[in-house]
């Protein structure tokens, strides 16, 4: 499986994501700087990491979504390549229009940094196929702007099409319908606020994040 992690100025989970991908797939991803306009050939997976790219200036993910590399990421997504956005990566994907909706300030205004319970709503995606549908997993969140917002029509469409992949089992940040992660219509772009890459070894306190990378490895070779 050939993968890349995009590095924006202010990304701070890029290395965690790279370590997780290498540990589980056996191949280190290529780290791609945001000013690059061309992605390496033959990528199976493009991962957008967590962090505070551009210091969250203007809106979280707003500046990064207009970075030079994002035209290539959007084109790759259009070709059906897998794109995973974690936390700030999810914010970038919504700002880039690759996923619907927006991520606003947490309803309680606090920065939330703790493990949360998630329900796997759709286990029939290339990202979630190694979780049991309806199961509860524990994955850490660490964000200030994770409050998912979209109009009712969009929310109904996401719900009806099974595009809500992960839902908070508790009200964490005010997200509409407790949405923690969604997928695009074509099923190759997933964004989620929780950090699966932070729970891949028992030493980290749990391994509930592994299944996402294992599923991608199985699906993408």
């Amino acid at each position, binding site marked *: 499986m050939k993968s890349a992690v995009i590095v924006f100025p202010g990304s701070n989970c890029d290395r965690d994501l790279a370590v997780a991908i290498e540990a589980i797939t056996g191949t280190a991803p290529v780290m791609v700087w945001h000013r690059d306009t061309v992605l390496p050939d033959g990528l199976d997976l493009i991962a957008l990491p967590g962090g505070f790219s551009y210091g969250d200036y*203007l*809106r979280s993910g*707003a500046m990064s979504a*207009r970075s030079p590399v994002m035209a290539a990421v959007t084109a790759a997504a259009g070709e059906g390549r897998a794109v995973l956005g974690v936390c700030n990566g999810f914010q970038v994907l*919504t*700002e880039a229009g690759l996923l*619907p*909706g*927006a991520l*606003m*300030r*947490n*309803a*309680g*205004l606090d920065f939330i940094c703790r493990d949360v319970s998630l329900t796997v709503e759709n286990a029939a995606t290339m990202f979630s196929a190694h979780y049991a549908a309806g199961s509860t997993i524990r994955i850490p969140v660490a964000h200030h702007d994770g*409050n998912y*917002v*979209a109009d009712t029509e969009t929310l109904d469409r996401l719900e009806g099409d099974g595009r809500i992949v992960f839902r908070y089992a508790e009200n964490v940040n*005010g997200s509409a319908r407790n949405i923690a992660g969604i997928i695009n219509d074509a099923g190759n772009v997933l964004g989620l606020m929780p950090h699966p890459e932070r729970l891949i070894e028992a030493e980290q306190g749990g391994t509930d994040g592994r299944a996402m990378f294992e599923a991608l490895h199985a699906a993408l070779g």
Partner: protein
Amino acid sequence: MKALVTITLKPGVLDPQGRAIQNALGGLGFAGVSGARQGKLIELDLADGTSAADIEAMCRQLLANTVIENYRIEIL
């Protein structure tokens, strides 16, 4: 030339920061503040003759997220 771009949350979009401001004003003893909405004001220094269409495009492509925000342009 200068343009002022005012960005506000769309009606109906919850504004937790605005609500905190409203509560803080109440805490200071200002009675009757029934709402507060927080937005942004961006001052642009532009080449003379920049078209209204270009400023619109700036708003749509970067300055506002039209999923959640409205914008208003004032050319000075």
